[in-house]
Structure formats: structure tokens, C-alpha cells
């Protein structure tokens, strides 16, 4: 017992020293070199021994099945290599065997926390390929659901990340609000997750009576809840110690690595595709892009929490300005005719039959379309060969690309900070592996 206590103290002292001596320019020791030195003399001390361990794939803090090959010297990380593919299901390949409208449920299941964004990336690509304009109400409804989804995704992130850092109560509070959002999805789309609500041409159905009132209730409630989360975490000594000045990567390096989303914004780069022209109806709304200062774990947390507030504002404006009119395009070549027309109109029946049996054809062409998902730039590439099935569907998943920055964040830090970095990176392994 006494020995254990001593060790703990030693760890704490080492940690304190590490905090003070933060010199990012300090040369990292080459693992192979140390391994060589270790063969003789004092290198055999346990603190200096080089140890390569597997973290995961079934480690609860890896948020899925991510395996990290970590080289350690004592508590310090010398090298870190992510190994992925344990959740690879070949969704991109399977999509090539489905007609365009049947691909939507597949792509939703890649990044299972941002299904509305996956749908929008895919449907948006097809709409641009065939030149289909979607009605304004559909644009607003898409934005409404995507922003609810963004809050939901950030809530899952906040709950699980705080859990990784030892704050278990956050998990229950965040999942309480997440459940409210899932109830809203169930009300409008009929499903809590993987809703298949977006269609090529608009959205599947108009929102039901009472949905607006429920969303407004949620919007009134949510800012207060976010205050509560912040009250729980912002003054939490342990949380602050574990996140501040940990995992800092410079903004230039992040850009080189192609990192986007809250990670990049936390480093002070105000880059958000929602502000790009012609992306749904985001141009109609007044919202801010939160940015951090140095890009440590704490900044990443602050940026995401602030994004939730901005999303609530967007949802409120969306409801205020929701235009009347159709919620899906009336182009019968791509969109199913309304059910009641089938018994009276021969053309509708033919279109319905064609769309359901073969599906629509897309003229040969290829397009890459990208949107801002909760984790960064989500791109979808579709190659059409003129048939009713895509010849290639590829998703540029933000988690997959962002994971490249993980080694930069962790090397030179402590192994406990590795968990913190991964939590603040927020990779969704379903999206990484596809």
C-alpha cells in the first residue's frame, strides 16, 4: 500500500514538472536510439525502458474499435500509430450495387452520430449531378434537422469525453438532452436514428403538427442546460488540469494535415463551410463561428459547447423563417409522386413504377460535394456511369482525416493525456472505417 502511494506521488511530481517544462521545440528522443542505449548500464531502469503496447481495439476510451500502437518510456509517449479497419464493412462497395435512392440508408450508417449530414452530403451530390433544385422549405427543414443533429452529436461527444476524464455525471445529463432530440427526430421522421429523412429532391415528409412547438420548447430549454454543463465542467479542477495546454498542435500543422471542424477552429482558424455561399439556406441565418486561441483540449471543449449555442440560434431562426410550400421537388423523374395521385393519374403510376423498380438514371459525370459535419469537412464523391446505380461512392470522412493529427497531439505527452486527446479529437470509428 505504502509503495503504491509513493508511486502515485512520484507520478504527480513528474506530471507537475512536465507541465512547467513545456517546450514544444524540445527534440523528441528517437525510440530506436533509446532502445539501443538501453542494452547497457543505467538504461535498464524501469522508467527508461521502452515499452510498446497495444491500446485497444477494445479499450472503452477509444470510442469504438480503434487500436493504438503506443511506444512508451515510463509514462511518456514516444510514438503513437493508429491502426484502423476493425469496423470496415465495405459500405462504399455495397453502394455500387444499389440504385441511387437505396444508397441513402447505407451512407447514413457510416458516421452513426451524424446521419443527417451523411444524407445531405449524398443527396446534395446527386441533386447537383442531375441539376435538381430543392424547394426553400426543404432547405430550411434540412438545416433544422442538421443543426439538431449537430447538437445531438456534440452532446454524445461531451458526455463520453467527460466520462473518459472521470466526470461520470456529465454522461447522464448530456444523454438526457440527447434523448429529447431523438424524440424530435422520431416525431418528424419516424425513426430515432438513421432516419432516411432526406430524399433526393427535398425531405420525405413535412413536419407534423406540434413539432414546431416541441422544437421551440427544446430551444428554450437548451441554453440553460448548456449553462449547467459549463457550471459542472468550467470550474472543475481536474477537468481543467487535464485539458489545459494538452494536445496542442499549431494551426499551420493542422492545416497541413487537412484537419477541419472544431479541431481547426479551436486553434484559432475561423473556417466553417456553413459560411460558404450556396450551401442550403445557411446564408439566411445570423450565427457566429466560435474559435479558440491555442488549440488545446480546453479550447476544443469550449468551441464545441459554444457551437451548440449557435446551433440553437440557427434552429430558432429556422422556425421563425420557415417558408410555406412543398417540402420536396415535384420533378417526377426523380421524386416519387404523391400517393393519392396514383389512383387517378396514369403518368404518376408509370413514374412510381419506374422509380421503385429501376430507380432513376443519372447521366455520366462525377462530383465532389462537401458540407460541414460536426467533425469537419464531410465530402461525398459520386461517379455516375449513366445507369441507375452509382459506379463509385466515396466519403471523405472528417474523422478519418483528423485522426492523422493524433500522433502530433500525443507524442511527447503523458499516456493519460493520450486518452484526453482522443476524447477531444472525437473520432467516430464507423466513419473512419466505413
Amino acid at each position: 500500500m505504502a509503495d503504491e502511494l509513493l508511486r502515485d506521488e512520484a507520478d504527480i511530481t513528474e506530471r507537475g514538472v512536465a507541465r512547467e517544462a513545456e517546450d514544444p521545440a524540445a527534440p523528441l528522443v528517437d525510440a530506436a536510439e533509446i532502445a539501443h542505449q538501453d542494452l547497457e548500464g543505467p538504461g535498464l531502469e524501469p522508467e527508461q525502458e521502452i515499452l510498446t503496447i497495444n491500446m485497444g481495439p477494445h479499450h472503452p476510451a477509444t470510442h469504438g474499435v480503434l487500436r493504438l500502437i503506443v511506444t512508451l518510456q515510463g509514462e511518456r509517449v514516444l510514438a503513437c500509430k493508429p491502426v484502423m479497419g476493425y469496423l470496415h464493412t465495405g459500405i462504399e462497395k455495397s453502394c455500387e450495387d444499389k440504385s441511387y435512392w437505396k444508397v441513402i440508408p447505407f451512407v447514413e450508417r457510416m458516421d452513426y452520430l451524424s446521419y443527417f449530414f451523411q444524407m445531405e452530403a449524398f443527396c446534395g451530390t446527386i441533386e447537383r449531378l442531375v441539376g435538381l433544385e430543392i424547394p426553400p422549405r426543404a432547405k430550411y427543414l434540412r438545416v433544422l434537422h442538421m443543426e439538431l443533429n449537430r447538437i445531438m452529436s456534440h452532446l454524445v461527444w461531451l458526455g463520453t469525453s467527460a466520462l473518459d476524464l472521470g466526470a461520470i455525471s456529465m454522461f447522464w445529463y448530456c444523454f438526457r438532452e440527447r434523448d429529447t432530440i431523438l424524440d424530435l427526430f422520431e416525431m418528424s421522421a419516424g425513426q430515432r436514428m438513421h432516419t432516411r429523412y432526406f430524399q433526393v429532391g427535398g425531405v420525405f415528409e413535412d413536419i407534423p403538427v406540434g413539432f414546431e412547438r416541441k422544437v421551440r420548447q427544446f430551444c428554450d430549454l437548451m441554453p440553460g442546460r448548456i449553462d449547467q454543463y459549463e457550471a459542472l465542467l468550467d470550474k472543475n479542477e481536474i477537468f481543467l488540469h487535464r485539458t489545459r495546454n494538452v494536445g496542442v498542435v499549431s494551426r499551420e500543422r493542422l492545416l497541413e494535415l487537412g484537419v477541419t471542424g472544431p479541431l481547426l477552429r479551436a486553434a484559432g482558424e475561423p473556417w466553417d463551410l456553413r459560411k460558404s455561399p450556396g450551401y442550403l439556406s445557411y446564408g439566411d441565418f445570423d450565427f457566429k463561428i466560435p474559435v479558440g486561441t491555442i488549440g488545446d483540449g480546453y479550447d476544443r471543449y469550449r468551441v464545441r459547447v459554444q457551437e451548440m449555442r449557435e446551433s440553437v440560434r440557427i434552429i430558432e431562426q429556422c422556425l421563425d423563417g420557415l417558408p410555406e410550400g412543398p417540402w420536396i421537388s415535384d420533378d417526377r423523374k426523380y421524386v416519387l409522386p404523391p400517393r393519392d395521385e396514383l389512383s387517378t393519374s396514369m403518368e404518376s403510376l408509370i413514374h412510381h413504377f419506374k422509380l421503385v423498380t429501376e430507380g432513376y438514371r443519372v447521366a455520366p459525370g462525377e462530383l465532389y460535394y462537401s458540407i460541414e459535419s460536426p467533425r469537419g469537412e464531410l465530402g461525398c464523391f459520386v461517379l455516375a456511369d449513366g445507369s441507375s446505380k452509382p459506379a463509385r461512392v466515396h466519403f471523405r470522412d472528417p474523422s478519418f482525416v483528423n485522426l492523422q493529427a493524433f500522433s502530433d497531439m500525443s507524442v511527447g505527452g503523458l499516456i493519460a493525456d493520450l486518452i484526453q486527446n482522443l476524447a477531444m479529437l472525437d473520432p467516430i470509428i464507423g466513419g473512419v472505417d466505413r
Partner: protein
Amino acid sequence: MPDAPGLELIAQGIEEGRGGTVIETSVEHDRATLVVNPDGILHALTWLRDTPEQGYRFLSSVHAADYLPATPRFAVHYELLCRERMERLHVKALLADPAAGEESNGIPADEKLPELDSCVALYPTADFQEREAYDFFGIVFRGHPDLRRILMPEDYVGWPQRRDFPIGGEPVLFTHNEIETPRWFE
């Protein structure tokens, strides 16, 4: 995206540095595309990145596609982005399939893989994405620091996202059929 005259200027600028690099330019679906010779891909990307008035310093995505039965069969797509001007440019390198050619140096034709220069030194973000293109299409990126399979198992044989690779060709192993699946335990 750069407009049609802007795209022609870009093509001209690249051609001045190294003739025969740009094969084709096109503007489709509000997107400018530059088709380049695979030998000149690094020259084109370097020019686009380092020319001050271009400044395509952000590489959004690298992905491959198989155009079977067209020739050249493969293409690697680079989605470049200039963040200052919010402009995207699509660069595409077409790659012929060497497996369709003759046997040479004692290597049978169907084992030869298409090759392309890696752009990891220019854009470090391409690391994982080039590995993914290698994993699924068997496109070898020359000069990549660590070209291994990334999503499929290390010992996997075949290039699963090629168009001639069958869908669902692999039996799933359960306890009830482990006897029929030959030598599964190895």
C-alpha cells in the same frame, strides 16, 4: 471555383513549367477540372500550391476511382481548395492499367499495379488517403513513407473496390459451416 478563362490560365501556367502536363480542362456542374498526365502530377500540384496568385494550399480529399471498361482505367482525384478565395479545383490524374499490357522483366502482366507519385511531401494530409487508394484499388504511390493496407487486413489479397471485384464473394465463417470452409484455422 475558377471560371473557364481562369482555368485556361492555370493550365497555361502549368504547361509553361513542364510541357505536356495538362491533358484536358473542363467545367461541369459548377466545378473546374484539370486532367493531368500522371507523370506531371507532382509538378501540377506544386505549381498550384506554390504560385502566389493560385495558393491551393489545402487538399480536401484524395480518392481513386475505377472507370472500367474505359481506358485509361483508373483515376486519382485531388480536391484542392484555396481557403482565401473559397475556390475549389479538381485535379484528376488518369492512370492506365498495366495489367492490360504485356509481361515484362519477368513479372506477369496481371500482377503489375498502376503507379503514381505520392504527394505526401506536398500535402501531409494525403498520407491516410493514399493508403486507402492503395488498399482498395492497388494504386502504388511512389515515395509514400508507409504504403500499407489501411482498412482491409494486412494479409488480404485483392483490390476490393475495383469494378471487376465481385460483391459479397467471401463466405462468412460460423460454427455451423466451419467444417465446410477448408483450412479456416490456418
